[in-house]
Every structure is written in C-alpha cells, then in structure tokens.
C-alpha cells in the first residue's frame, strides 16, 4: 500500500506535476523534474526539426541528379541536420531530460545542488536555439556541422555567424548542467550511498559531466576564434591571412570527439539499468563497468587526431592517434560483454525497455566494430569522408544514443508521468525502428566502401540502388519515431496509473510515488546495500 493513500487527496495533489498550475509555474520552476520536462519538450521539437531535414536529404538522394532542392539548399539541409541533431538534440538528450529528472531521485536527494542554475541552463539552451533557428529562417548555413576553415571563416556566403553564436551559447547550458551534476553527485548522495553503490546511470552522468566541463570551453574558444576571423578578419585559420586551417581541425575535434562520448556514455548508463532490471540480475562486473565508463571518458580526450589521418598531419602523429583509438575500443568491448553476461542465467522479461536495450547492444556493437576500420590508418585513407563514416556514426549516435534515450524514456515514463503506456504499440514501434534503422544505414556501409563521398548532392549512377534502399529505410525509421509520440501522449490521459514501481526495479527512484512529490522523498532514504539486488541466493527478488 502506497504512502499517499493514507493521506488521500493532499499527497496526490502534491506530486510535482500538480504542485502548481499555469505557464508561470513551469517557466519559473526550479524543480529538477519540471525542468526535465521543459527540456523534453524543447529537444523533442528540435529532434523532429532535424529529422525533417534528414528526410528531405534522403528524398533528394533517391536519384543521382538534383531534383527536389538545389545544391545550395541541399548543403544547408545537411548542415542544419547535423547542427540540430548534435548540438540541440543528442548532447542534451539524456543528461538534460533523464539525467535532470533522475540524478537527484537515484541518489536520494531533494533536488540538484543548484536549482536556479538548472533553470538557467534551459533558458540558455533556448537562447542558443533561437540563434540557430534565426539563421535557418534567414537562409540557413552551408558549412557542414564541422565548420571547417577557411570555408566557414572566409568563403561561405551563408549565415555562419548566428549559427556559431547559437552553438557557442548552447555550450554554456551543457556546462551549467554538468557542474550541477558533478556537485550533486559529490555532495548530495543519501547517507550510506557510497561511490561503488551508485547505479551505473549515475556513473555515466558523472563521466559525461566531467567531459562536458573539460571539453566544452575548448569548442567555445574555437568558435569565438572563428568569429574573430570571419567578422574582423583576424588571421587565425585562413592561410591567406597567415593562419593555419588544420589548427581549427585540432581544436574542433578536441571537443567534438569527446562530444561523441558525451552522447553515447549516458545511453550506456540507461542500458545498464534496463538490462539488470528486466533480467532480474545484478549487473555483471559492476566495478569493471565503472572503470570502463571512466576509461572511455579519459581516453576520449586523446584520440581527436584520428579525424585527420589524411589532412596533412604527420605520419607519426597518425600512429599515436590510431593506437589510442584502438585502445578506446577496449572499454567499449568490456561493456558489451558485461551486458551480455548479465543476461546469462537471468530471468528475462520482454517488456518494451529491454527491446530498446537489445537494439542498443546490437547496433552499438556494429557501430563500435566499424569504428576499427576508421581507427586503422591504412583503411581510413580509403574510407574517411565517405558514406561509411555516416553509417558508422549513425550506428553509434542513432542505433546507440537514440535507442538508449528511447529505452530510458520507456523505462522511466511511468515514473515521470505516473502512467503506463500501450505496450503493444511500444513494442511494435521498437521493432519498426530497428528494421528502419538498419535498412537506412547498413547500405551506407557498402556505399562508403565502393567510394561514395559524403555530402554529395549529385552522384554517379552506379550508387543509386543503395541510395534508394537507404531512403526506403529512412521512411520506415521516420514512422518509428512518430508512433511513440502518439501513444506516449495518449497515455497521459487514457492509460492506467503506473504505481510506485511498475517494473519491480531496484533503485531509489522507484521507492517514491509516481509521479514523485516536489521534494522527491517523504524522508531522505538511508542506503545500506549494493545496487541491482535482483536476486539473492538463487531467488529472484520481485
């Protein structure tokens, strides 16, 4: 019997959703759970904007010649697809939505350490977003999301400045969230909740936050330098002004490679929670999992040069960056093996979240292994800047990060909203996503190997069949993203209440009512045991 029943109406009204009414109560909230919902709305809008760009790109690529849009528009579409999806969706996705909602709940805290900073980060995010959208409606930007110089600093005639300002501002929202998480995880854990009792989701948020705090200032500086050159003609990157274009690439990737880990590590945390819960088994090799997360975070800073094997970097620098890139594959492999081992001799129940987790593990494995082809120097020469790079990083970013994000949304939706959702539809759409994803991106591996370069508006005829397959897949994939929007929104009004702990999961967030009260817990919990206690002496704890 749940606690709230004893107090009747009062406590039901007391949940964070009903703690206040009206727009103002949301726009001025400092409740981490409400801010998570605000972020959920913002990033979902950007996700569909970015997805719409992708759909237009795939439509254009149905035929070898240009037909639906012009070359200029095409270039703007892939630029904005990249900018929106990376900066405005993937990087904030899990930390700003699930992390914001769950970090205090999972460590038994009332809120994040700096609730006002948390609200500020959402506003900063949206201000960055307004700059990007302004650039978009004013004609767009065509530099590619990588902003390579001197094209971006001198030659592009498009709206580089507002987009760069937008990305610059956005970085501060990431930093604010990350500082908040680091302080909260260090200082506000419930009594007894020591570091090695933390759920892996918390470890993943911690590692991600450390990367964000260390790497984001570098991209901010880089973008600022780019603006100095473009607006004031200060020679930094353009050789015509005495600059060095490769310097930009070093600085850019010093952030943007770790940014890949900002996007994927949180999903690894989500998958760990889901796999353990639905197999009723403690996560296999918990300590190795924590070391692996931190190792990925650290090594991630040392591999940026693998984006530049053919850009005129010295052969020996290539050796170092290649060797370190192979090294970062090892902790990723450890994680995949440990998830697989967790399932062994478990009691696996096929609810929606674990379908996403299965999808994540399989697709991340393929994405990771194909990373070896690009970490390997001799093969990278042929493969870099071709469609194989698209395929590789979409397996990581969409097959990995987005699958993890959706898995997490389906896992914690009952906690966030207090409602279950229609599982038949949810499972169906997970399947649609998996099929659509593979049909979209697997042909791109082949396209890359046969030599189709990235960012090509027109292409030789012999690449058409694979492009048509990919476009067909994208249509299915798009459907797979629309269906969850429908049944999740539907669930808010029409589905049954979730109760405190619908999955019988461990973890402090499942000990408080759904949706949680404003201060999360009636009493601050005291933690004595380890995480993931799903089985004791051969018995399943359900």
């Amino acid at each position, binding site marked *: 019997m749940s606690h709230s029943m004893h107090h009747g109406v009062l406590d039901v009204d007391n949940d964070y959703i009903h703690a206040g009414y009206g727009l103002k109560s949301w726009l001025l909230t400092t409740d981490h759970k409400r801010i998570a919902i605000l972020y959920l709305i913002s990033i979902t809008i950007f996700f569909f904007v970015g997805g719409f760009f992708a759909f237009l790109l795939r439509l254009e690529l149905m035929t070898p010649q240009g037909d639906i849009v012009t070359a200029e528009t095409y270039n703007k579409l892939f630029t904005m697809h990249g900018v929106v999806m990376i900066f405005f969706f993937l990087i904030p996705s899990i930390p700003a939505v699930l992390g914001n909602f769950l970090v205090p709940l999972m460590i038994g805290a009332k809120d994040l350490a700096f609730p006002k900073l948390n609200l500020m980060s959402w506003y900063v995010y949206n201000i960055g977003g307004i700059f990007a959208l302004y650039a978009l409606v004013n004609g767009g930007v065509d530099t590619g999301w990588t902003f390579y110089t001197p094209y971006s600093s001198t030659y592009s005639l498009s709206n580089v400045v507002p987009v760069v300002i937008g990305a610059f501002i956005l970085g501060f929202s990431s930093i604010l969230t990350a500082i908040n998480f680091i302080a909260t995880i260090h200082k506000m854990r419930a009594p007894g909740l020591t570091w090695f009792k933390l759920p892996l989701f918390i470890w993943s948020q911690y590692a991600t936050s450390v990367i964000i705090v260390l790497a984001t200032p570098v991209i901010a500086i880089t973008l600022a330098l780019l603006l100095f050159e473009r607006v004031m003609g200060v020679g930094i990157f353009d050789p015509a002004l005495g600059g*060095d274009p490769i310097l930009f690439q070093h600085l850019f990737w010093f952030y943007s490679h770790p940014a890949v880990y900002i996007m994927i590590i949180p999903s690894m945390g989500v998958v760990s929670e889901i796999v353990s819960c639905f197999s009723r*088994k403690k996560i296999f090799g918990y300590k190795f999992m924590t070391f692996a997360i931190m190792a990925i975070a650290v090594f991630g800073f040392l591999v940026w040069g693998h984006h530049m094997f053919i850009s005129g970097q010295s*052969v020996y620098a290539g050796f170092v960056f290649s060797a370190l890139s192979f090294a970062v594959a090892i902790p990723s492999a450890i994680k995949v093996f440990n998830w697989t081992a967790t*399932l062994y001799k478990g009691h696996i129940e*096929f609810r929606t979240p674990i379908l996403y987790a299965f999808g994540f593990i399989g697709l991340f*494995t393929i994405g990771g292994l194909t990373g070896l082809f690009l970490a*390997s120097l*001799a093969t990278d*020469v042929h493969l870099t800047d071709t469609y194989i790079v698209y395929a590789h990083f979409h397996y990581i970013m969409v097959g990995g990060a987005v699958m993890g994000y959706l898995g997490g949304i389906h896992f914690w939706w009952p906690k966030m909203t207090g409602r279950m959702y229609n599982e038949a539809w949810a499972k169906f759409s997970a399947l649609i996503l998996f099929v659509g994803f593979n049909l979209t991106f697997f042909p791109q591996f082949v396209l890359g190997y046969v030599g189709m370069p990235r960012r*090509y508006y027109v292409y030789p005829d012999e690449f058409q069949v694979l492009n048509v397959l990919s476009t067909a897949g994208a249509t299915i994939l798009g459907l797979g993203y629309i269906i969850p929007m429908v049944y999740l929104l539907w669930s808010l009004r029409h589905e049954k209440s979730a109760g405190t702990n619908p999955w019988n999961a461990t973890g402090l967030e499942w000990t408080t009512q759904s949706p949680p009260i404003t201060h999360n817990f009636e009493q601050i919990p005291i933690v004595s045991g380890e995480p993931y206690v799903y089985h004791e002496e051969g018995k399943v704890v359900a």
Partner: protein
Amino acid sequence: MWSFPLLPESASTIADKVDALFYFLVAVSLFFSLIIVIGLAFSAVRYRRGSAATRKGALDDHLPLELAWSLIPLAIALFIFGWSAKLYFEMRVPPANAMEVYVVGKQWMWKIQHPEGNREINQLHIPVGTPVKLIMTSQDVIHSFYIPAFRVKADVLPGRYTTQWFEANKPGEYHLFCAEYCGTSHSGMIGKIVAMEPADYERWLTGESQLGVAMSSDGKEVFERYGCRTCHRQDTGPRGPALDGLWGRKVSLANGETIVADQEYIRESILNPGAKTVAGYSAMLMPTYRNQLTHEQVNHLIEYLRSLGSAQNSK
C-alpha cells in the same frame, strides 16, 4: 543504371593490400558480432522469465572472464594497428623514382599539370606500372583528392603542399572525387583518372593536341620576368644565394637548423621569404611574392629550379 557494385574496383598496387586488411577487419567484426548476437539470443530464449532452465551458478562477477575479454580484444587491436600502421607508412612515403604531377584545387575544379607541360582539367592521365606522386595545393578552401579504385585520398590544403602517391596496375578510367566538403558544387568537383599502358601514355604526352611548354621553361620565363636573377646569381654576394644545384640540397638556415630544399621549402621561400632564411643572408631583403604569382607560376618556378640541377649529396 541498375547495375550496382558492392565492391570497388581495384586498380593500384596498394589497393589489394588495403582490401586484405579491410576483409580481415570484416572477419574480426563478424566474429565479435556473432558472439554477441548468439549470446543475446541464447539468453533471450533459454533464460526468458518462467523458463525451466536452471540458473544455478549464476555469476555477477568473474575476474578471469573480465581480463579475457579485455586482453584478447586488446591483442587483436594491437595486431591490426601494427599491420595497418606499416601499410599506412608505405602509402604515405613515396618511392624516390616516382614521377611527379602538380595538382591545384579550386572551387570547383582540379587543375593538373605534368612537368613536361601538359595541362589537364578534371582529368589525370598516368602510365600504369610507374609510381606517381602528386604535389597538391589549393587556391581557396580545403579539398581532398580521392581515387576510390586506388584506395588513396589526401586533403589538398591552401597555403602549403600535401603529397600522395600511387601506382596504377590496370589500365582504365577511374573516378576522381573531391572528398572534403568545399561548398556549393562540391559534388561537381569530380573527374577521371585515365591509367594507360606506358607506350600509350608517351604518345598522349607528346601528342599533337598536347601543346604544353615544359613547366621548367615557363618557370624560367617567370624567373626572368620578375627579376629574380637580379639577386639570385653566382656573383651577387650577400644579396641572395645562387640557386644552381639547390634542388634536394641540405641548406643551413640563419637560425642554425638545416632543411632539405624541396617543393615546400621553395614555395615558402617565395611567398614568405623571412620564414626560413639561409645562413649568411638578410631576412629583410627579399619581398614576398604572395599576391603577385599564381599557384601555377610558383609550381613553374619550382620546376625551373629543379631543372637547374640537383646536388650530388641529396638523398
């Protein structure tokens, strides 16, 4: 139109070596993917909730296993790294006897010139069986010279030379792509590589339609026109060093370093004379020719200096 290749053509000496490594990587990837997929599927079926299979001996920690699946992949990764690094070294370091061709990239066109004088746009004719080294620069943004059938690609940068080399081993026509996004018509910055039997290539090179003047002759003309000889002669003393026999020689610089006089050094010395001044000369005397010479003229000057003979002590 509906023929669709799943494998790229292979037409250079390096291509098969890259493919061998590629297929090894495919095999490793399949092996590990299968372990994971079979592992997941096995557990998903056998250990689904409610199944009768015994769970006795379920583990949630096992150090030897953790070490095994850390160290075995590490060993495989290091093996691939070593193999690949060795091959990459071979790909990046051109043989001494390579024939040289100059490439200038611009939005959105490839301008190519052979030392013999032949100019080409978006085409490159080469003989099979001879290593070819490309000396490349861009006059605007970054481009990338990519020949999928040869498995080679290198970025073409403004402000400096980059090089790449290959040896075609099968006559034919192959795609040339720009692989680094360079603006509106990036995907139109394409062309073809025509690999020919050596005899055919000779015929093409000297054919009547190829009305080029050797690059070195053009270079001599530039050298005279811009008055380079005023300072660069045997008898000009401290005004400027003589350039005969400079090519490939080790040069002692004013800052105490030595440098081999190659394309990059000569290019830099023309465009930014103060950067690496020869010992015994003033950095102040020579003006920059940055905005006076085209990229092609700099290339011509280089070929001219090369024609003045190379030192015996080089290479």
